[in-house]
Structure formats: C-alpha cells, structure tokens
C-alpha cells in the first residue's frame, strides 16, 4: 500500500461515518522538535499515544503544548518560519514523509481550538457540513440532514438547536459554539481529535458538558487534550503527559508521561510533584 492510499480519507458513503474502524488510530511521536524561526519551542519529545482514549497534556504556559499539538496535524508549519524535525507516526506512517500531503493529514486528524471559531457567515447546519464541503466531498441529499442530526446529537446540541438550524453559528453561546466546532470536526470522520484548551473560555456548566463529551469521544477516537485545569485532566484522561520549560527562551521538554491516576497520585519526578502541588506554573 502506498502512503497516499493509506492516508486517503475513506469515502463518505452513508451518514458520515465511513472511516476504517479496524485501524488503530495510534499516534506516536519520535524525537520531535518544533521551532519558530531558529528558536525551538519544544524539543526532543517522544511518546506513544494510546489509541481510542483521552490523553491530557499539562504544563505551565509557554512550555510548547500548543506547538506540539499543532505538529500532529501539520498546522504548525502554516506559521511562517515554523519548522519541525523528528517524526509523528499515525498507524506507522510518518506524517512528515515528503510523500504525505498535509491536507490529507488534516483530514484524518481534526482540531478543536482554544477559542470557539464557527464560520461567522454560516448557519448552524452549514457549520456542521463545512468540513465536508471544504474537502469537496459529496453527500447524498438526504445524507446531509442525517449527518447534521447525528453530529449535533453526538455533541448534545440537537435538542437545543433543532428548531433553529438556519441561524448563524455565532449566535449560539460560547459553550454551544465550542460543541458546534466539535460537531464540525467529527462530521468529517477523523481518526484523531486534538483539543487545545477547549474549555478555557467557557463557564463551568459548558465546561462540564464538554468534559462529558471528551469522555464519550475517547471511546471512538484517539483524543489529545491540552488543559490548564488539572482536575479536568484527572477527570477525562487515561494518560497524562507533563511538560515544562526551564525559562524564557528555553525550549519546553517532556518531563513525565504515564497513567493519569499514577502520575497524579505518585509522580516519579520532583518537577511534576511541584507542578501538581501548585508550586509553579
């Protein structure tokens, strides 16, 4: 099988979920360094993510969590001057192989951003379908309605918005917008979902709803969540990676990676223990 074939998004046949459910969606990072211009923001990261489960990335501001996350779907390189060395493997295929098209990578690895960013000119319904249309995929006419209902139901938004699907996506509350953005991501049936502090701009009630959603998504997808909220990491993730940075201008590094329960109750590194105890960050 060629790389191109292996990475081609499965055809969308029915109501949206035509993805290959036999694959593992296993993401592995090997010796990865990501830089802006000449200065590395995070360096020498190696870790293997558990498939179909939630992994949390924690650490102080500026330690490169967002940067690392954005290397996974090759969004990092969109920033002018940004560079990546090392490898990110999805089911054994290096996403940075020159034969791999970054657009194909982003179709298999979806992303939810810190600030909810629904398309402002599109309705709720069209926001859900935006990914499919941006990828020029075709849907059966009835498929669109089914897909919209299925995705909005999956993110727990259907009952709230089913009577106003034509309203602009940005007319929703912040928490609803973020769930709409998650619906938009799962509508294109990715293998991996990256979330960069998805609750940091939301109220506690919306945060709880998104956390519940993360747990549910973790059953089907490989989910990576960057969070500043340690309780959130403890509640939703099976594994946790702790990063830190020595000081301004230094690159961030992976300190410890392991089962969330173990890492929180008995961290093996002093730095982790200090961070969890709130002594820095």
């Amino acid at each position: 099988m060629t790389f191109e074939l292996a990475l081609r998004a499965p055809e969308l046949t029915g109501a949206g979920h035509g993805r290959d459910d036999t694959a593992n969606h296993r993401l592995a990072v090997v010796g990865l360094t990501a830089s802006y211009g000449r200065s590395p923001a995070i360096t020498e990261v190696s870790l293997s993510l558990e498939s179909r489960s939630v992994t949390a990335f924690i650490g102080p501001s500026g330690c490169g969590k967002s940067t690392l996350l954005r290397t996974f779907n090759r969004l990092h390189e969109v920033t002018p001057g940004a560079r990546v060395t090392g490898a990110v493997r999805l089911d054994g295929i290096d996403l940075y192989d020159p034969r791999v098209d970054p657009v194909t990578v982003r179709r298999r690895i979806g992303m939810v951003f810190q600030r909810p960013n629904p398309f402002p000119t599109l309705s709720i319904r069209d926001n859900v379908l935006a990914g499919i249309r941006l990828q020029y995929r075709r849907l059966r006419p009835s498929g669109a309605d089914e897909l919209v209902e299925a995705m909005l139901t999956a993110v727990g938004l259907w009952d709230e918005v089913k009577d106003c699907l034509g309203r602009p996506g940005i007319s929703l509350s912040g928490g609803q917008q973020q769930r709409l953005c998650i619906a938009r991501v799962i509508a294109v049936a990715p293998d991996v979902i990256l979330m960069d502090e998805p609750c940091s701009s939301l109220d506690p009630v919306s945060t709880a709803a998104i956390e519940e959603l993360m747990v549910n998504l973790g059953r089907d997808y490989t989910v990576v969540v960057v969070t500043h909220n340690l309780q959130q990491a403890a509640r939703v993730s099976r594994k946790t990676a702790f990063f830190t940075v020595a000081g301004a201008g230094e690159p961030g590094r992976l300190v410890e990676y392991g089962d969330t329960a173990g890492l929180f109750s008995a961290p093996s590194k002093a730095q982790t223990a200090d961070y969890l105890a709130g002594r820095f960050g």
Partner: protein
Amino acid sequence: MTALAGRPAGVSTRRRLTDHVATVAAWAAFAAAAIPLVSLLVTVVTRGLARLDMTFFTSSMRGIVGAGGGAAHALWGTVLVTLAATAISVPIGVGTAVYLVEYGRPVLSRLLWFLVDVMTGLPSVVAGLAAYALIVMVVGPGARSGLAGAIALSLLMIPVVVKSSAEMLRLVPTDLREAATGLGASRPAVIATVGLPAARPGIVAGVMLGVGRIIGETAPLLLVAGFTDSLNLNLTTGRMATLPVYIYSQWQNKGADQAAYDNRAWTAALVLIGLVLLFSLAARLLGRLLAPTSLKG
C-alpha cells in the same frame, strides 16, 4: 466631588473655549470642502438640464453641425470601455492581491507592492501611451479601438483594486483560516471559502473607486480610442467616442452655434456624473448578488 470642586475655575473655562474653537474650525473646514462641491453640482445640473432630452440619449453627432444631435455614441462608448476595463482589472487585481497576501515570497512581493505603488501614481497619459505601444505592436500603427482604451484605463484601475482587496484579505482572522485549514481544506479552498468572502467588500470598494478613477479620464482615450461622431458598439475595431472625449471636443471645436456645443458639453458632464452613481450602485448590488455560496446549503 471635593476634588472636582477644588479645581481652579480657569481650567474648565479654557477647556470650554478650546471646545468652541475646535467646533468652529471643524465646521469651517467642512464648509470649505462642501461649498465648491455643491457649487459644482448646482452648475452642472442647471447648465446640463438645457439639453437633457430624449434626443441626447438616442442620437449621435453624425452629420450634425449646429443644434440638435446627442451623445448616444459617447455614452455607449464610455459604458463599454468602462465595463471592459473593469472586466480586465478585477481578475488581475484580485489575483494579484491573493498572491501578495496568501502566497507572496518576501522579495517578490515587496517588488510587486512597489510596482503597485508606482502604478497608483501613474499619470494617465502615460497609461495611454503604454496601451498605444501595445496596440501598435499587435495591430499596427495608427490603430484605434475601444479595447485599447479599456487596456489603458485598466492600467490605472488595477492598482486600486489590488490595494483595497489586499487590505481586506489581510484582515481575515487567523482563527478562521486555521479552522478551515484544520478541517482539511486545501490552500485554494481556504482562499475561496474564507479569504475571498471576507475580501468581497474590498473588491466592491476597489471597483467603485477604480471606476471613479477611470470614468472621467480623457487623455489616454484621446490617444488610443480616438474620437468619432458615429456610434460604434464594436470594442475591437474602429474609433470609439467616450463622454470625456466628447465633452472635450464639444468645448474645443465649437461651430457657428456656440451655445448648442456648450449645452451638449454640460449635459454630457451631467450624464457622466449620473453614470458614476449608476456604476457605484451596480457594483454594490453585484457584490451582494455574487455572495459566495460554495459553503452554503
């Protein structure tokens, strides 16, 4: 309260005085700008009304030496030449803006920006000469056509379209670009669905400003589109009259019945102003109708 009351009374008086002076100055500046404009409009309308009749819009100057006749040929010429210049300028201008904002390599785009800046200040007669040089190469010496005029005018219009489109493209929030990119949209798809819709107001404004810039141009048209008394609807061959050139020639080559020539010139000026308004409205309307719908259901 005590702090306010404790302030010396002079400060508040001085402030009120400054306020008065500033208000008067602003009004004076406004009047200085508005009076010539109003006077110009009043003059053009009052003097233009004399010949604002059906004949003016339906007949050309073919075989007319005294009173009568009209500017149908020049009106159609201006409409066609302006539309053709817009049709040339919009794709080239928007394409250049997309390149500059979305793809530009540092050195090349700085060079391009410099050229755009230079072109903004290009004297229109130079644009006319450039178009003339081009048409001489293609068709041969002495050739005149409406299309050549449109090419000359597009040299003036392109930089206007580039600037206003690029300005809007730059304002597209990174958020939205990343949302689309992260959903697996290719670069062209991101531009088509997030970039261009955001740039649409800039494109429309560019067309409106650009039409305003070119519609009254006389020198380049005199050079390459020429002048004729008859109607010519074919852009590619033959001389084509336009309203500015018509006004110039009515004014310049008056026959025995001078008033008839003067009146036609003023009416043509009035019609030209009306045409600018029409083009602005049309650009706005088209901008709304052409709302990109590729992402909508």
